[in-house]
């Protein structure tokens, strides 16, 4: 019974030329977004790989230098793009692509797409995620708004029900039929994306990319299903197609435009971020309270020196088995890194609080839930950006301390003239970044998963309960 009606809905829709034109347009947009997105991904990924290789070689083959000069020479960490980030650019276009890694300073990522592009990028890019999140629901609305109202207006609903079909069965059948139509529009693009992605190969393990891709598809299918059921329910609750369409368009505007903007503004208002100048001043002030690696007269350096004298039972810096310059630098680095990290964590916390408004609003709006999950699976969300930033900082800290250790153990106190050859720099492993596992990405979005499940349950249980009691005549 359900299959027969679903088949009818499917065939009827395919024979509707208006819908076919609309579907073809969306399908073309999806395919174009997939191909353009993949092209852009490959180009950026190649650029970043080349840049990373170049800076790694520059570091490894750097001229003979004093180790602390090398720490200031520094290196760069380029953020590789996640394999399926071409489907959802997320924050990638706005967050930086590279971090300069140097002694004493914790730099943030620079050179984002948005910085290097025209301001049009801020209006949103034509990505697969944009089409799936914004345009597909619109297509679903145009597909389903008359699901019940048209049958009520024409009287076919009475004929249908007189054959022994219950309202619940009719509703499920329509949902099933429309789901098949939506799958027909979406599937070619996702299949093409998968083929192109996995035939080309990404930088991360294929299993991770595959799992992320699968979850990406599953979350969107759930999102579309929610919109299909919602549209069918709204249609069932109205007597006229025009009012059902207006209601559904109001829901779309609210979900896809109004609420996301409102939650972002609310987050920024409730949790204000410090200005960069303020943060730099705060950091500078606190760093100044610790050991200054470059200042031999520093009081805290003097205390450290006395501590070392006591530890090694000596009375002068020359008698120490280690180079005090390197030890002082390491202590200064430890302190400044700690201060930077504290402030960075505080800033991250503010951003996370801002995001949390939008995350919890997913319980009211499935668009927000799927947007977070989409970015999460694509590896282009805030959490992935912070993950990279932390990995880059860990590498920077270890590099600086490694060079400080070389200064402390291989050079004499006061030796500012010795230059070490590049064989020393080759001892350092180059920066390598691995996109975290799918489980990690999923754990960051538990609330969004719950929100999507909540919506599925709400429309399936609550929505169908409402349909059972609609007025047929």
């Amino acid at each position, binding site marked *: 019974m359900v299959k027969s009606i679903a088949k*009818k809905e499917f*065939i009827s829709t395919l024979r509707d030329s208006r819908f076919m034109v609309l579907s073809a347009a969306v399908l073309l947009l999806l395919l174009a977004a997939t191909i353009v997105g993949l092209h852009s991904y490959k180009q950026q990924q190649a650029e970043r790989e080349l840049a990373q290789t170049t800076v790694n070689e520059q570091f490894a083959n750097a001229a003979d230098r004093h180790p602390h000069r090398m720490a200031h020479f520094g290196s760069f960490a380029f953020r590789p793009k996640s394999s399926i980030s071409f489907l959802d650019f997320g924050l990638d276009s706005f967050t930086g692509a590279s971090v300069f890694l140097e002694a004493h300073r914790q730099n943030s990522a620079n050179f984002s797409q948005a910085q290097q592009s025209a301001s049009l990028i801020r209006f949103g890019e034509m990505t697969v995620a944009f089409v799936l999140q914004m345009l597909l629901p619109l297509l679903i609305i145009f597909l389903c708004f008359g699901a019940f109202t048209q049958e009520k207006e024409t009287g*076919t609903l009475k*004929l249908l029900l007189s054959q*022994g079909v219950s309202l619940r069965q009719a509703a499920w059948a329509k949902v099933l039929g429309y789901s098949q139509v939506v799958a027909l529009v979406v599937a070619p693009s996702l299949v093409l994306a998968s083929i192109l992605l996995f035939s080309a190969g990404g930088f991360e393990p294929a299993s991770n990319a595959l799992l992320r891709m699968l979850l990406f598809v599953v979350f969107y299918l759930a999102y579309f299903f929610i919109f299909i059921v919602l549209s069918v329910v709204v249609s069932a609750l109205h007597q006229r197609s025009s009012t059902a369409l207006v209601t559904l368009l109001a829901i779309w505007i609210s979900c896809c435009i109004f609420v996301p903007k409102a939650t972002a503004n609310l987050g920024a208002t409730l949790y204000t971020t410090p200005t960069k100048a303020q943060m730099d001043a705060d950091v500078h002030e606190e760093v100044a309270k610790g050991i200054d690696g470059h200042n031999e007269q520093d009081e805290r350096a003097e205390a450290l020196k006395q501590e070392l004298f006591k530890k090694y039972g000596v009375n002068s810096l020359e008698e120490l088995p280690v180079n005090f310059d390197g030890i002082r630098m390491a202590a200064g680095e430890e302190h400044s890194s700690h201060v930077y990290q504290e402030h960075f964590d505080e800033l991250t916390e503010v951003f996370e609080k801002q995001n949390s408004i939008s995350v919890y609003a997913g319980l009211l709006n499935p668009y927000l839930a799927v947007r977070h999950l989409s970015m999460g699976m694509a590896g282009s969300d805030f959490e992935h950006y912070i993950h990279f930033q932390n990995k880059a900082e860990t590498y920077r800290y270890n590099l600086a301390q490694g060079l400080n250790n070389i200064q402390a153990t291989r050079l004499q106190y006061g030796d500012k003239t010795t230059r070490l050859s590049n064989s020393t720099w080759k001892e350092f492993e180059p920066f390598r970044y691995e996109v975290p596992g799918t489980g990690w990405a999923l754990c960051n979005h538990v609330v969004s998963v719950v929100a999507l499940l909540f919506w599925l349950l709400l429309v399936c249980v609550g929505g169908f309960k409402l349909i059972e009691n609609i007025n047929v005549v």
Partner: protein
Amino acid sequence: MEIVLEAKQLKKQYQDKLALKGLDLQLQAGEIFCLLGQNGAGKSTTINLFLGFIKPTAGAAFINGLEVATNVTKVKEYLAYIPENVMLYPNLTGLENLALFSRLAGFDYKKEELMQYLVEAGLPAEAAARRVGAYSKGMRQKVGIAIAVAKHAKVLLLDEPTSGLDPKASNEFSELLLRLSKAGTGIFMATHDIFRAKEVGTRVGIMREGELVDLLATSDLNANELEKLYLNYMH
């Protein structure tokens, strides 16, 4: 005889209007009952109550012994329905519409069988493969008749079924009803057509403002007498 349709003190109140005032009625298998009445008399309300599309305010409607209100889906197995204006799915052909509605009723007919039902209902064979969107009202009505006949129901509920049919098709429809009646189908028909009621009906009921004001056996009077009686009640 087997009672296939029954109303016991059936009432329906719409806000401040009592649309049906305690209808008591029985329809036996093979009987054709014609319900006459003006627009708004309560004929469609009565049919909607038997179909379970609306719930009675008081009393009960029964189809094949089952109370409709508590067996809304089950009673559909025993009844078929033809509305005044049969609307079908415009993107499907007449044949596909019939196949769909038959499958929903539990009948998986072959193409030839479906064609036979359509042709018997008066639809030209060549029209069966055309999309219903291009059909006239009469052609849709014929597909609706085929859908009802193909269901082989015990009870046929008809709401102005000959509306939109040409005289020849109306006549063929009357013959079809008589055939079904002879085969044991109980037919409940709401109509304005006094002459058709006299022609095919076993009994005629006259409904006015939600009340069954007269109940007559068609064998007791001719069409002219019936018309006079009907008009008397309407004034």
